[in-house]
C-alpha cells in the first residue's frame, strides 16, 4: 500500500518521496512512541524490567552466576555486544559447572515478544502456556527487558488494559 502511495505522490509532483517498508508494525515493535486513541493501552514494553541481567556468550558461568545472584535474579540473557538475544540461562545452568562458557550451556533461541503486545493479550498467553516471564525484544532481536507476570497483573488490575482491537504485534 505505501509503495503505491509513494508512487502516487510522485505523480502528483512531489520530488522527494519515500515509503517506510516496515510501517506501523515495525515502528511499534521497536517500542517507539506512538499517538492515537489506543496509544495509552498498556503494553508489555512499558513494563519490561530493563534491569534483567545479561552476559556475553564467552563469559564463564561462575562470573555470570556471581553477578546474577548479587542482583537477586534467577535468570540471565546471553546477548551480543548489540544486545541481540542469543540465549537464556536459568537456575539450572547458573548452578552448573562454573568453568563453562555461557554459550555452551545457554538455552538457545528463547521465544520473545514485541513491546507493542498489550498487557491483556500477554497475560492471556502467559496463563494459557503457564509462563511466568516473557522476554521482550525489538523486531530485530534486541533485548528490551523481561516482563514478569506479577508485574503485568498489577498493571492490568489498575487500569483498563483491554486488548487492541486488531491484536497488533501478535503473535510473533
Amino acid at each position, binding site marked *: *500500500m*505505501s*509503495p*503505491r*502511495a*509513494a*508512487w*502516487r*505522490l*510522485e505523480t*502528483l*509532483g*512531489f*520530488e*522527494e*518521496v*519515500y*515509503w*517506510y*517498508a*516496515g*510501517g*506501523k*508494525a*515495525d*515502528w*511499534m515493535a*521497536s517500542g*517507539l*512512541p*506512538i*499517538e*492515537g*486513541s*489506543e*496509544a495509552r493501552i498498556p503494553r508489555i514494553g512499558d513494563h519490561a524490567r530493563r534491569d534483567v541481567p545479561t552476559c556475553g556468550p564467552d563469559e564463564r558461568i561462575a562470573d555470570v552466576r556471581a553477578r546474577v545472584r548479587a542482583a537477586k535474579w534467577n535468570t540471565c540473557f546471553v546477548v551480543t555486544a548489540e544486545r541481540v538475544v542469543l540465549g537464556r540461562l536459568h537456575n539450572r545452568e547458573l548452578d552448573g559447572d562454573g568453568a563453562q562458557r555461557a554459550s555452551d550451556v545457554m538455552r538457545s533461541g528463547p521465544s520473545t515478544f514485541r513491546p507493542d503486545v498489550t498487557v491483556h493479550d500477554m497475560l492471556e498467553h502467559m496463563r494459557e502456556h503457564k509462563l511466568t516471564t516473557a522476554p521482550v525484544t525489538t523486531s530485530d532481536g534486541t533485548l528490551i527487558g523481561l516482563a514478569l507476570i506479577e508485574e503485568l497483573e498489577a498493571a492490568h488490575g489498575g487500569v483498563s488494559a483491554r486488548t*487492541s*482491537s*486488531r491484536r*497488533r504485534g501478535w503473535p510473533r
Partner: protein
Amino acid sequence: MPKSIDRAEVQRLVAAGAQVVEVLPADEYEELHLPGAISIPLKELDARTAERLERGRPVVAYCHDFQ
C-alpha cells in the same frame, strides 16, 4: 523515483523535517499512528488531499507493514 527506507532512515528524515503520511484507512490512523503523522488514506490520495502536504519537504508514506 520513490525509495524504500527503514526505521532509522525514517527517524533521520523526520529529524531533518520530512512529513510523514499514513495511508491506511482513517479509523486505523485514529487508533494508532506515528508521532506527527498526517492521515491521507490511499483511496483518498489525489491532488486535492495532497494539498495538505508541503511540496518543498520530503514525504515518507507508510501503512501497517510490508503490504
